[in-house]
C-alpha cells in the first residue's frame, strides 16, 4: 500500500509488480555488469532513482558517497602531523642482544652501540634477526626545546614498537600500560616523571624484543606536552585497540545471538553468520592475545583458517543477502570455498615446514581478495540499482574493507610507513555492523512473511465467514424476494380483477355498442371514457404516497373537474388535512376513490345538480368524507330505479364495508348527500 503513495511521485517507475522482495533474483536486467550479478528490486526502464522516499536524484549522484569516502580517507588531516612543540627523534643508538640476556639497561653496554635511524624497521635493517635490541635515545635537546609547562608533564609517544617494548628513563622503568604483553599493534604513552629527570644527560632506554622477518622494530619517537600529543595517541588507540576490542565483543555477542537464531530458523544465511562469528572470535582473540612472543605455528594455522573462512563468509553472506542465484554464483560459492580450502592447506603445509609466520598468513589472504571484490561489485551494483540505506551502507562497508585490506596487505608487504596502522579491524567492524543490520532486516522480512501467512490464514477464515454470510444474505434476499413476489402476485391478482371487472367489461360493452348501428357514437365514447377514467384511477392509486388520502382524492378532482366544468357543474372543494390511514394501500385507496367517484357520477347523471361539494374532515377516530349535491334527490331505501345506479349504490356500500367503514346516503328535496366514514386504524 505504501508503494502506491510514492508510485504517484514516480511516474517513470515500473508498476507495482516490479517491486521484487529482498532476495529475489535478477531477471531481464542488462547492462555492462556480469549477467549473473544480482539486481534485487530492479525497476526496468527507470532513469531516476529514489533515495529518501520523496527526493529524486540522478543515478550518477550515487557515486558521491564513494567518492567522498575515498577522498575523505586520503585527504583527512591524520593526527600525528608534526608541530612546533613536539620533537621527533630520528636517530638512536642501538645494541643488538640476540640472546636477550640483559633485562635492565644498566646491564647493557651502550658503548658498543651504533647510531641507527628511526624508525628502525628490522625487516630492512636486520631481516634475519630474532631477539632483543637495546636502544638509547638522548632526550636533552628535545627537553630543552619543549620546556615543561605549569603542571603539565612531558610525554613520549611511541607509535609503534614491535613485537614488545620496554622503556626506562635514566635507568628507571617507565610504565607503558601494556603489562607484559606484546605491543605490536599498540601505541605507547610514556609520561616522563619530573622527579626522574636530571639537569643533563637524560636518556630514554628501550628494549625491543622481536623478529626481523615479521617487520618488527621501533618507530620514530615523539616528545611533547601531553596535550599536544594526546590526539595522535587517542586516534591510534581508537583504531588499534578500542575498535578491535569492540569488534571482539560484538562478534562474541553476534555469535551468541546467531546460534539460537539459526537453531530456530535453520536458514542458510543465519548458519553462515553463526560460522562467521565462530571464525572471527578466535581469530581476533589470537591477534589481540596479551602474551608476548611470536605465536606458535598451531595458533597461526588457526588464525589463517578462521580468517580465510571468515573473509569468504563475508563474501558469501553478501551475495546470500542479495539473493544472487544462477550458475555464476553457484560457481562463485564453490570457488571461494575451494580457495579457502586450498589456501588453508598451503598454510598448513608451510606450518609443517616451519615457514608459516604472521606475515605469510596475511600474504595467503591475497588470492581471496579477488573473490571478495566480486561480491563487493555485486553489492555496489545493488546499491546503485536500489539505493536503500541498507544496501548503500553495506556497499560502503565492503568498499572500506577492501580499501583497508589493500592498505594492510601493502603494510605487511612493507610498502607503507613503518608505523602505519592496520585498518582492517575498523573496516571489519563496519562490515560486521552491516551484516548484523542485514540479518535483522532479513528477520524483519521473515517476520513480515510470517505476518503475511497469518494474514492469509485470517483472510481465508474471513473468506469462509464471508461465504457463510453471503449464503445467509442470499437466503434472506430469496425470502425477501419471495415475500415481495407474494405481494406482487396479490397486487397482480387485484389489478387483473380490476381490469377484468372494470376496463375489460367496459371495453367489451363499447365494442358491442359499435357493432350495433343504432347506438349513438356519443354513448360509445362515454363508455370508453369511463374505461379510461377507471384506468386512471387505478394508476393514481398506484402512485399513492405515504398513506395520505388527500392527494389521491385531489387527483380524482383534478381529472373530473374539466368534464364537470364543461357540463356546467361547479365542484366545491372543502377539505382539511387528514391524518394518515394506516391501512391505506393502492387497493384500499382505489376503493375510497371509487366510492367518491361513484357518488359524483350519480350526482351528475341522475341528480340534475349544478353544484357538488366534496368535504373531508378528520375526527378523533375517523375520517369523514361527504359528497353532497344540490340535485333532485332520490329515495335511497327504495330500489325502484333499475340499472347502473342501483348497482352503483350497493357497490359503494360493499366497498365501504370492506374498508371497515360505514356509508350513509341521505337524499331529499335539497339534494343527495353521501357520507363515507373511515376508521383511522383497522
Amino acid at each position, binding site marked *: 500500500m505504501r508503494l502506491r503513495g510514492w508510485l504517484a511521485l514516480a511516474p517513470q517507475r515500473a508498476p507495482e509488480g516490479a517491486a521484487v522482495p529482498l532476495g529475489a533474483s535478477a531477471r531481464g536486467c542488462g547492462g555492462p555488469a556480469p549477467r549473473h550479478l544480482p539486481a534485487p528490486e530492479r525497476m526496468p526502464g527507470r532513469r531516476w532513482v529514489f533515495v529518501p522516499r520523496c527526493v529524486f536524484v540522478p543515478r550518477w549522484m550515487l557515486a558521491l558517497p564513494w567518492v567522498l569516502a575515498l577522498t575523505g580517507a586520503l585527504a583527512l588531516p591524520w593526527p600525528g602531523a608534526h608541530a612546533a612543540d613536539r620533537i621527533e627523534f630520528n636517530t638512536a643508538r642501538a645494541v643488538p642482544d640476540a640472546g636477550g640476556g640483559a633485562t635492565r639497561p644498566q646491564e647493557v653496554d651502550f658503548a658498543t652501540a651504533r647510531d641507527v635511524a628511526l624508525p628502525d624497521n628490522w625487516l630492512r635493517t636486520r631481516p634475519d634477526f630474532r631477539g632483543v635490541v637495546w636502544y638509547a635515545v638522548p632526550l636533552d635537546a628535545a627537553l630543552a626545546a619543549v620546556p615543561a609547562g605549569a603542571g603539565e608533564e612531558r610525554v613520549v609517544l611511541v607509535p609503534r614498537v614491535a613485537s614488545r617494548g620496554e622503556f626506562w628513563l635514566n635507568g628507571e622503568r617507565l610504565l607503558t600500560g601494556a603489562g607484559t604483553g606484546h605491543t605490536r599493534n599498540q601505541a605507547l604513552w610514556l609520561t616522563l616523571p619530573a622527579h626522574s629527570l636530571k639537569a643533563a644527560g637524560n636518556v630514554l632506554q628501550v628494549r625491543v624484543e622481536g623478529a626481523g622477518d615479521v617487520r618488527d622494530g621501533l618507530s620514530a619517537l615523539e616528545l611533547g606536552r601531553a596535550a599536544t600529543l594526546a590526539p595522535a595517541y587517542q586516534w591510534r588507540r581508537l583504531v588499534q585497540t578500542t575498535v578491535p576490542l569492540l569488534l571482539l565483543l560484538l562478534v562474541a555477542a553476534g555469535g551468541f545471538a546467531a546460534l539460537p537464531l539459526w537453531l530456530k530458523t535453520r536458514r542458510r544465511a543465519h548458519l553462515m553468520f553463526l560460522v562467521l562469528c565462530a571464525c572471527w572470535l578466535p581469530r581476533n582473540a589470537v591477534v589481540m592475545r596479551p602474551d608476548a612472543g611470536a605465536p606458535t605455528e598451531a595458533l597461526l594455522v588457526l588464525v589463517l583458517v578462521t580468517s580465510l573462512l571468515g573473509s569468504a563468509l563475508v563474501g558469501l553472506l553478501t551475495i546470500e543477502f542479495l539473493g544472487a542465484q544462477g550458475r555464476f554464483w553457484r560457481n562463485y560459492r564453490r570457488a571461494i570455498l575451494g580457495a579457502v580450502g586450498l589456501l588453508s592447506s598451503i598454510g598448513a603445509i608451510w606450518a609443517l615446514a616451519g615457514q608459516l609466520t604472521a606475515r605469510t598468513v596475511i600474504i595467503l589472504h591475497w588470492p581471496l581478495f579477488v573473490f571478495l571484490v566480486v561480491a563487493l561489485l555485486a553489492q555496489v551494483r545493488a546499491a546503485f540499482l536500489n539505493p536503500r540505506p541498507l544496501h548503500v551502507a553495506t556497499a560502503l562497508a565492503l568498499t572500506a574493507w577492501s580499501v583497508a585490506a589493500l592498505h594492510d596487505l601493502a603494510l605487511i608487504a612493507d610498502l607503507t610507513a613503518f608505523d602505519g596502522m592496520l585498518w582492517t579491524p575498523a573496516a571489519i567492524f563496519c562490515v560486521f555492523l552491516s551484516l548484523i543490520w542485514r540479518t535483522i532486516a532479513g528477520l524483519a522480512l521473515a517476520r513480515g512473511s510470517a505476518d503475511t501467512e497469518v494474514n492469509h490464514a485470517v483472510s481465508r477464515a474471513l473468506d469462509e465467514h464471508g461465504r457463510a454470510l453471503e449464503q445467509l444474505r442470499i437466503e434472506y434476499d430469496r425470502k425477501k424476494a419471495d415475500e415481495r413476489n407474494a405481494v406482487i402476485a396479490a397486487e397482480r391478482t387485484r389489478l387483473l380483477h380490476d381490469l377484468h371487472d372494470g376496463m375489460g367489461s367496459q371495453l367489451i360493452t363499447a365494442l358491442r355498442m359499435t357493432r350495433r348501428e343504432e347506438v349513438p357514437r356519443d354513448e360509445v365514447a362515454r363508455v370508453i371514457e369511463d374505461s*379510461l377514467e377507471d384506468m386512471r384511477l387505478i394508476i393514481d392509486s398506484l*402512485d399513492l*404516497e405515504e398513506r*395520505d388520502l388527500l*392527494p389521491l382524492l*385531489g387527483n380524482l378532482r383534478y*381529472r373530473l373537474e374539466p368534464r364537470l366544468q364543461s357540463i356546467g357543474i361547479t365542484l366545491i372543494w372543502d*377539505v382539511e388535512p387528514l391524518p394518515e390511514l394506516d391501512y391505506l394501500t393502492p387497493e384500499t385507496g382505489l376503493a375510497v376513490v371509487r366510492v367518491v367517484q361513484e357518488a359524483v357520477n350519480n350526482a351528475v347523471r341522475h341528480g340534475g345538480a349544478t353544484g357538488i361539494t366534496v368535504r373531508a374532515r378528520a375526527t378523533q377516530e375517523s375520517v369523514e368524507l361527504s359528497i353532497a349535491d344540490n340535485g333532485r334527490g332520490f329515495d335511497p331505501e327504495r330500489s325502484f330505479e333499475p340499472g347502473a345506479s342501483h348497482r352503483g349504490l350497493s357497490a359503494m356500500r360493499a366497498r365501504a364495508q370492506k374498508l371497515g367503514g360505514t356509508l350513509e346516503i341521505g337524499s331529499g328535496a335539497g339534494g343527495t348527500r353521501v357520507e363515507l366514514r373511515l376508521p383511522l386504524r383497522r
Partner: protein
Amino acid sequence: MAAKNMSILTVTLVEDDAPIREEFAQMVRADAGLKLLSAVGSCADARRSFSLARPDVALIDLGLPDGDGTELIAELAASSRHTSILVVTVFGDEAHVVRALQAGAHGYLLKDTPTAEFGRAIRAVCEGAAPLSPQVARYLLRRFTKPVGEPEEPRLLEPLTAREQDVLRAISQGYSVPETARRLEVAPSTVAAHIKSIYGKLAVHTRVEAVNRARAHGLI
C-alpha cells in the same frame, strides 16, 4: 403579452403513433389560433425540424422509437427558451409527468383531450399556466423537503421557498390554482409563477448536460 395572445402560435408535433399524430394535427389545423409547423414521428426527425424552425409550442411523446422524448425535451428547452413544451401522455401519471418536468417540460396534455379543450390547454400553458396534479405536487413536496434516501442526487436540488411549499401543499390537497391563490391571498398568476419556479428547480440539474447534448446535436 397581449400582442402575443393575438398572434398565431406555431406548433410542432412529435408523436410516433400515426393515428394520434393525425388526430392532433387535425385539431391544430382546426384551431384558428394555431399553425402546424410539422408533425414528426421520431427524435431524429424532430431534431431536423427543430434545427429548421423553433416552434412556439412543441407537443412531445415520451416513448419514441429512436430515443427517449425527455432527451429531446431537454435539448429543446436548452436551445429554445421561448418554446412551450408539453408532454403528451395517456394517463398523466406521476412517473411520466415528473420525468417530463425534470427534462424541462412546461406541462402535459392527455392524449384523450377533447378538441374543445385542446387549444385552450395549449394556450393556457403558453400564457404562463402551470398545470400540476395533486399527486405530483405531493411527490414534489416530498422530493424537495425530504431528500434523504432519494435515489437522485438531492444536493442538486435548490431548496423550495416557504411560499413554494405552501403552494405545493395546497395543490396536493386537491385545491385548484385559483383556490390556492385565494387561500394564500395572492393572485392566481403568482401561484402559477411559483409552480413554474418549482418546475425550474426540478429541471435545473439536467440543464447543463442538456445544453451539452443540444450543442452536440447542433441545436445551439
